[in-house]
């Protein structure tokens, strides 16, 4: 089964959720609506022999503006890895349904996507930051992220002007 076959099957099954094809390189990707992504991934897993979810990650498009969640379900039967893109509004309230119960692999990937982009995953069993400290402010992989001058009293930039830290102890 090729990409075109899968795209056709998905479009017939989910005419509302599948928003179209995007000619990304090297492989094309499928645009999916935020409401339909869970059903699409469940259909891929149960009907189209997509046994694994390789990756869940995020992209920030400040020009659109949009936040994007990218899913990479893979099939060993058809020897293909799809990429599904879900576009969300570029706010702190960007939300999408979690797919943790369908693929356990999604758990940490969704946590990392939340950690880096601030995208909320509804019904995630353990929804908190994974890499950054729990008291970290902001979402580092957003394009408009500004590196803080101090974290817990420690200066962050390599070259910095000595000043009184606004909060926290001194090390």
């Amino acid at each position, binding site marked *: 089964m090729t990409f075109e076959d899968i795209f056709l099957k998905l479009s017939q099954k989910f005419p509302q959720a599948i928003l179209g094809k995007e000619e990304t390189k090297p492989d094309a990707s499928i645009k999916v609506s935020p409401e339909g992504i869970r059903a699409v991934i469940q259909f891929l897993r149960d009907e189209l022999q997509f046994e694994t979810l390789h990756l869940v990650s995020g992209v920030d498009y400040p020009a659109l503006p949009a936040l994007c969640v990218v899913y990479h379900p893979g099939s060993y039967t058809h020897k293909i890895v799809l990429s599904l893109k879900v576009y969300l509004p570029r706010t702190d309230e960007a939300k999408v349904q979690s797919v943790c119960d369908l693929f356990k692999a999604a758990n940490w990937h969704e946590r990392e996507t939340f950690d880096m982009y601030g995208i909320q995953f509804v019904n995630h069993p353990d929804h908190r930051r994974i*890499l*950054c*400290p729990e008291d970290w402010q902001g979402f*580092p992989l957003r394009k408009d*992220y500004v*590196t*803080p001058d101090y*974290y*817990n009293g*420690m*200066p*962050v*930039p*390599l070259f910095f002007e000595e000043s009184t830290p606004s909060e926290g102890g001194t*090390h």
Partner: protein
Amino acid sequence: MGPGDNVVLTTMDDVLNWGRSNSLWPLTFGLACCAIEMMATGAADYDLERFGCGVFRATPRQADLMIVAGTVTLKMASRIRMLYEQMPDPKWVISMGSCSNKGGPYWQEGYHVLKGVDRVVPVDIYVPGCPPRPETLIEAIMMLQKKIKVQEAALGPLGFMRKQA
């Protein structure tokens, strides 16, 4: 204190420094890829045990040398400080590799990296390299041993015969 005491004190220094410098027990502190080189230094080919320095301890309470081998993230920095404070005096720190010296490749865009471990603990020897080869780490340990051998072990700032102010 008479003139003869100096001879005793100098000898005391020598004995203590000889003991300290030849039984450095490092704290297992591998943070990133430098740790692989540190392990290689401790393994059979390079054999850190020749310098009395091969007893890697898993607890700071039994260690007197901290080899910070790898990228120090801001999340880890406060833990490093805590482990350093748990080590008994006298204690020394080797900063191994570019990351722990000055941030390494994360010097500009690394929002999460502490730009130099000397911002949280005092460093005795800096080892350049990305990562440094085992010979470089051995050289650093030998330099540290030289540094320890000229310390005032008995009456100096860390000496056990130091008078309390």
